[in-house]
């Protein structure tokens, strides 16, 4: 039905022509979901934009053909192309928050779209079709709820509305660009199931773009693996993921954290590109420096590096009136956790579960309303009452989620890294600080001359290494990592996780590892704690947890996390209807 042949897309710029996509071919049959998978810069979204005719300026299709049925899409005049878009091809975007108009009711948006393409249909029929579609996409009481505005729906519900909007003109082909990336796993699983059902029932063709191999494994029929704008490998999903031929596909698969087993290290398959030249003696200097400090400090009496008891955090709710304060919003309620010295505690939860707030409370960035925190058995003053010179400020360091925001773009890496050394008066001599910063860069696997450059000259993974180096230079004994790899591509994630494991073992760090992804946590953690709606649901030994979680919610979460085990024929049961119903309104 959709046939793309030899597609080449170019972006002419003043530094020369950039080829975003080169000689890509793919075909989609009715009732088939064709997955496009690849890491950032692979050209996935550019291919989608070329198919839909929405290439951003100054991009142009330099060669190739795109045919939908008998129609050559590239030969269509702009007006006909515009008419085909929406009517024959429609789109689902990543973020339903921005793809729906916040000022129009759901009904108005659906009816407008239907009437734009079928003006003869009439208001009443258009409205009936809109309601039927919403019901079909799983919105209960659609007749009544379609009078609501997008903000009155949850994220998952909004994505259902966006899917209804994409289907309301009865298109032949739907292009979905990362349709579940912004959603929590439980909701993601439902939305994927919905997409699969609609494609089967309606005989749609779908191009589904994602960076997540788990999503590919769960719903696609065929898959094309892309890298740097070229096809690496293509074929039926089972065959490509089950017996990957290309080295790149194999390394990509190896980098995906497995929910069903814990790997000591991710096997990293070298593809191409020389690894950064790192002087081993420089890294050794940093290692000796860290060890010397560790050996010099006497082991503290407490067995727990970090202990939190009955911690509560509440924020002011929206004001109810001029003189009435709103109900406080409870972000964390009565959470008690312990991080044993030298181990990794994985803290898992969906967005809004309060896990990041907990981390910020430990760092002294938010003011708890109750409970106690201890570091090495000593009380940690909460929030603003923790003095700037408090020893825990040095001993507990944090690695943030977004490596693009955690490094100041206006400062050289060298200056960023020297900051903790000067701040904690670890090294009074500026030249020695610089030497240490460079040695630490070598230790985290970056060239030493990185110290002279600025953050924007590094990729996300490299920046996360820099952030880790900054934390290490404070000579911490506790590291709080808040989703340290969730902004990274999977192969980069594997490298960063390997690095964290290395460092943890070599320097006996205690790590609080926060993530929404159970598969990632399984690779890292010795103990697991699960949070939901600000409360602790379950805590225990990692292996025991994955063997059989006690709490109902943990079981559901585990069942809904996409797993590559599906492919390998392992007995990973699909979520039962009861479990799906349990998380529907989350």
């Amino acid at each position, binding site marked *: 039905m959709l046939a793309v042949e030899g597609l080449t897309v170019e972006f002419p710029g*003043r530094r020369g022509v950039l080829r975003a996509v080169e000689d890509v071919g793919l075909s989609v049959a009715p009732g088939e979901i064709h997955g496009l998978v690849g890491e950032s810069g692979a050209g996935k979204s550019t291919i989608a934009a070329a198919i839909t005719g929405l290439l951003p300026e100054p991009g142009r299709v330099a060669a190739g053909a795109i045919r939908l049925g008998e129609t050559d899409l590239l030969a269509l005049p702009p007006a006909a192309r515009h008419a085909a878009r929406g009517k024959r091809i429609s789109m689902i975007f990543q973020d339903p928050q921005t793809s729906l108009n916040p000022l129009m009711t759901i009904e108005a948006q659906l009816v407008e779209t239907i009437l734009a393409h079928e003006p003869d249909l009439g208001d009443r029929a258009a409205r009936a079709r809109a309601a039927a579609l919403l019901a079909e996409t799983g919105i209960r009481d659609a007749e009544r709820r379609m009078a609501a505005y997008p903000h009155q729906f949850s994220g998952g519900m909004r994505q259902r509305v966006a899917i209804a909007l994409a289907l309301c003109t009865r298109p032949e082909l739907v292009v979905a660009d990362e349709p579940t990336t912004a959603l929590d796993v439980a909701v993601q699983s439902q939305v994927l199931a919905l997409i699969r059902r609609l494609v089967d029932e309606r005989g749609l063709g779908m191009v589904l773009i994602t960076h997540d191999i788990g999503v590919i494994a769960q719903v696609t029929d065929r898959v094309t693996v892309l890298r740097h704008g070229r096809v690496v490998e293509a074929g039926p999903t089972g065959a490509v993921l089950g017996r990957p031929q290309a080295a790149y596909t194999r390394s990509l698969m190896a980098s995906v954290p497995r929910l069903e087993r814990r790997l000591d290290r991710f096997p990293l398959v070298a593809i191409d590109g020389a690894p950064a030249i790192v002087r081993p003696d420089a890294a050794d200097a940093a290692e000796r420096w860290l060890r010397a400090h560790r050996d010099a400090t006497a082991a503290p009496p407490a067995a727990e590096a970090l202990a939190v008891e009955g911690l509560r955090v509440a924020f002011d709710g929206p004001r109810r009136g001029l003189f009435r304060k709103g109900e406080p919003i409870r972000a964390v309620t009565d959470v008690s956790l312990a991080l044993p010295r030298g181990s990794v505690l994985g803290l898992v939860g969906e967005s809004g579960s309060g896990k990041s707030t907990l981390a910020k409370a430990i760092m002294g960035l938010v003011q708890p309303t109750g409970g106690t925190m201890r570091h090495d058995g000593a009380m940690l003053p909460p929030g603003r009452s923790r003095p*700037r*010179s408090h020893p825990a400020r*040095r001993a507990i360091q944090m690695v*943030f989620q*977004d490596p693009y925001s955690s*490094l*100041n773009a*206006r400062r050289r890496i060298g200056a960023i890294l020297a900051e903790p050394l000067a*701040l904690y008066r670890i090294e009074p001599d500026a030249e020695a600080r610089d030497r240490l910063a460079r040695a630490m860069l070598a230790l985290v696997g970056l060239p030493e001359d990185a110290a002279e450059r600025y953050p924007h000259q590094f990729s996300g993974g490299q920046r996360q290494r820099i952030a880790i180096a900054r934390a290490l230079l404070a000579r911490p004994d506790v590291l709080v990592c808040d989703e340290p790899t969730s902004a990274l591509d999977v192969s980069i994630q594997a490298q960063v996780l390997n690095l964290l494991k290395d460092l943890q073992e070599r320097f006996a760090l205690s790590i609080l590892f926060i993530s929404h992804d159970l598969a990632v946590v399984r690779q890292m953690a010795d103990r697991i704690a699960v949070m939901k709606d600000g409360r602790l649901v379950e805590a225990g030994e990692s292996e025991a947890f994955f063997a059989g979680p006690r709490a109902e919610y943990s079981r559901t979460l585990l069942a809904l996390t996409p797993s590559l085990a599906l492919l390998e024929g392992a007995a990973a049961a699909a979520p039962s209807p009861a479990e799906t119903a349990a998380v529907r309104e989350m």
Partner: protein
Amino acid sequence: MRALIRDSDALHLLARSPLVIASALVAIVILAGAALAPWIAPTDPYDLASFSLVDALRPPAFQDGADPRFLLGTDDQGRDMVSAILHGARLSLVIGLSAMAFAAVLGVGLGLAAGWIGGRFDAVVMRIADVQLALPAILTALLIDGIARGVLPRDAQEETRVAVLIVAIGLSLWVNFARTARASTFRARNEDYVQAAIAMGVHPARILAVEILPNVVGPLLVIATVDLASAILLEATLSFLGVGLPADAPSLGTLIRIGMQFLLSGEWWILWVPTAFLVVLVVAINVLGDFLRDVFNPRLR
């Protein structure tokens, strides 16, 4: 040179806009002329003994009855217009730049503090800013000027005229700086690199100076340029109204006020030459400000 232009966004943008290049040239020529006025001006317009009424009301060099010594003619006192304008521009620019710097220091300081401390301090500062915005700039300047006249002894007034003007103009321009600095500080506060610095225990003053201020410089530079134009205009307005600089030390505004008397007489150049000069200067600065805005805001490209 080509490679340099290709690799620098700012130079690339500059190479594509002839208006900006022209404005930059105009601004540079005027700045140089103003800075070097005491050395390059044909006569000293402040030295009353140096000109005589015999030379009064000479037209510019290209008109009949002109005196080749006076390229742009003379005013009713026999003062050379070229010298008067060069010295006037010098005064206008000194006052404009100082007022802009005063407003920037005051506004950025208050804005950073308000954005960082938040709460009541922020509310008070920003309400003062709102009140300030409700007062026309000219009114603020007149008020400061009036107070200075009332408070200072008579003989000190002449010497402090320039300082009073700078404070008056600066006070009516600080709000833009404060608002921009405050908004940027608010945004930066929640950036992870600032959170990281707070968690590490870095002193707030250092966070503001090292982590936040460098990220605010771009938009502030744009405001500074546009406000420089406003400051020059405001000074000209005050002098035009007679509360600025006196006739024996004329700035551009004073020159225009003197010229007003000749608006409808034949001696057009006494009014129009300084007026045109002021307009060209202000337009050039504004074009440069617009250009800076484009350079610092990649999304507008």
